[in-house]
């Protein structure tokens, strides 16, 4: 899977975002991470094709059995949906 790396000063945690390029809540999640200068990597699963698309959606279901977007992995924790409070807590913001 090809992730896009977003550099940021806040690199204390390993943050991986599984998103859809068309989704408003995924867009808000990216905006929240950017505003808080969090370093993260993301993949827009709707822009993947073939094997990469199935690999990415299987990974999302492994982290979040509903298979919904956005799914954010912060170290070993998983946040589903745009949940600002939970992200602040995990990212110590």
């Amino acid at each position, binding site marked *: 899977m090809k992730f896009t790396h977003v550099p940021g000063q806040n690199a204390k945690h390993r943050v991986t975002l599984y998103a*859809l*390029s068309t989704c*408003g809540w995924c867009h808000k999640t990216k905006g929240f991470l950017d505003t808080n200068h969090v370093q993260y990597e993301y993949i827009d699963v709707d822009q993947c094709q073939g094997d990469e698309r199935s690999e990415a*959606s299987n990974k999302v*279901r492994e982290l979040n059995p509903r*298979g919904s977007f956005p799914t954010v992995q912060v170290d070993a924790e998983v946040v589903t*949906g745009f949940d600002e409070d939970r992200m602040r807590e995990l990212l110590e913001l």
Partner: protein
Amino acid sequence: MNAEERFPDEVLKTYERLKKEAEEAGYRLNPDRNFTLRLVQGLLENEKRYGYLCCPCRLAFGAKDKDVDVICPCYYRDSDVEESGACYCALYVSDDWISGKKKHGSIPESRPARFMRDGYSETPAPPSSPTPSSLPLPVWRCKVCGYLCARPDPPGKCPVCKAGKDRFERFM
């Protein structure tokens, strides 16, 4: 930060049409204009990719029969707006959402997990379901909003929610 973003004309036009249709039928579009315009842009992007307006916040299978329940307006909209104040992507919201009585945020996914994994499938009708042959005409039900009508065939478009003909089921 809240300045109006630039959107292509087709997005603005579709937004105005959806807003008008929603208001005429008693629905509300999300008043957060930038957020809503982005969703409309996502819908149009999905229409180009798949040939139908798949929900921008759900991953399409790319086959209409597997995605039919999440073509906008989706089968889950009305109950999600009622219970959570917004549909899954928050294109449609309730008055309580607009007034701030309902917390703004993403809502839980109502689409069954098996549809998320394998795509939509029809639930077979129970064998005992009544099919009165005495009716002069069949009754059709819109699976998006529940509109019922008795006529030889389903309407081309639901007069309430504008869902297409293929989203009607034989009800009686």
